[in-house]
């Protein structure tokens, strides 16, 4: 068993932290969209082709923020379930030791009901854990697919930037770089989280 699966509840907390970072980067992307709009406005007719792209950047930022927040919430809920699951698992293993150590005790069956309740709780948590992992995995895949558009958007932005004249070209290319950079960073976080989630799915 790898260290990761051994400390699954720690891994889930790490995923939540990674995705929290992704939300912050998405917020920077939103700033980039506002900046792009201002530059395109100043550039006037020469950046006419760039202006519609700012709407797309804005939309991408909006989707990314919304999705990141949603994923972050799912990861936080999963983190709580994992901690509860760890506690339930620990209780079961402690009770198992008692069943061995006190097997001849006249009162050992007084623990049966308690043990069954703990097992039921453990099963419920296992089901919640699997359901939450599945939803998290799904949401990560959706955001990852949205972010593919960022590359296209960055390429189009560069093409349009080259039409905007020397005065605004650098600023608009910078916008394109920011979009690509932010998307790439978020994708790294998502990729990392997806890898972690795929290991956790097996747990």
């Amino acid at each position, binding site marked *: 068993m790898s260290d990761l699966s051994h400390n699954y509840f720690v891994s889930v907390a790490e995923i939540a932290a990674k995705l929290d970072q992704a939300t912050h980067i998405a917020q920077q992307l939103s700033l980039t969209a506002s900046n792009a709009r201002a530059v395109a406005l100043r550039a006037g007719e020469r950046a006419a082709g760039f202006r519609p792209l700012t709407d797309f950047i804005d939309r991408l930022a909006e989707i990314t923020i919304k999705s990141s927040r949603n994923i972050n919430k799912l990861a936080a809920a999963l983190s709580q379930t994992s901690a509860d699951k760890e506690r339930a698992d620990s*209780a079961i293993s402690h009770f198992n030791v008692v069943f061995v150590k006190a097997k001849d005790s006249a009162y050992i069956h007084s623990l049966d009901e308690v043990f069954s309740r703990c097992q039921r709780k453990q099963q419920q948590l296992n089901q919640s854990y699997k359901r939450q992992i599945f939803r998290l995995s799904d949401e990560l895949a959706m955001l990852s697919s949205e972010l593919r558009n960022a590359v296209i958007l960055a390429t189009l932005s560069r093409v349009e930037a080259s039409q905007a004249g020397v005065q605004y070209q650098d600023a608009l290319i910078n916008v394109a770089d920011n979009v690509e950079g932010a998307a790439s960073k978020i994708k790294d976080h998502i990729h990392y989280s997806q890898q972690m989630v795929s290991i956790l799915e097996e747990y």
Partner: protein
Amino acid sequence: MKTHKLFESNSHTWLMFGRDDEKPNEIIDTNQYIVISNKNALLMDPGGIELFSAMLSAVIKQLPAEKITHLFASHQDPDIISSLGLWDQALPSATLHSPWIWESFIKHFGMNHISYAAIPDEGSSLKIDQVTLDFIPAHYLHSSGNFNVYDSDAKILMSGDIGAALESVDAPLFVEDFDEHICKMKMFHQRWMPSNEAKNDWVNRVRKLDVEMMCPQHGRIFKGDNVKRFLDWFEALEVGVIAKSTTEA
């Protein structure tokens, strides 16, 4: 873990659990006590997480789990009550009696089912079946919110950390030679107990009680004249001091 009967009458029994030779070396050995009455039981300072399985195994040999309707935690330390999250699953209907000031702290150990009965600073009493147990204030000895349990019928005082000694798991249950025992408890009391005023107030109150056995949470039990010897020694001891070698620099 060993079980030792300290007292038995028609109404109730006192048992001590401890000297756990299977416990990990790094954790301090602890004494746990239980009062079993006709239909109920009070388990005192049930111990840390590491002890839970051994403790429950020992308890279940003596009584059915559901008979433990009350728990007591003299204070908030991990060796006293960090097993709470597991007892919470084993005894969901039980009530935990503990100092009011520690309620929101102790709940960090995990308490979703057990009820918390906050003991006021001046102390209180618990009646289980025909037995009355008094929660005697022992604040600052060592914790700032701290109680002992006194049973006037059995003449037993469960004194928590007062009278505690750091010893090996094969130490005898009772103090045999008091003077020899001093070296095992002197540093513990001086370092862990912060207030001479609180200590002397406790000594004066406990002198008025009829105590045949004083049962600390670590080390050996004081019996008969050794209880009085302990009170005299403790009264004369200056506490709240740290070894000079560590403060002189």
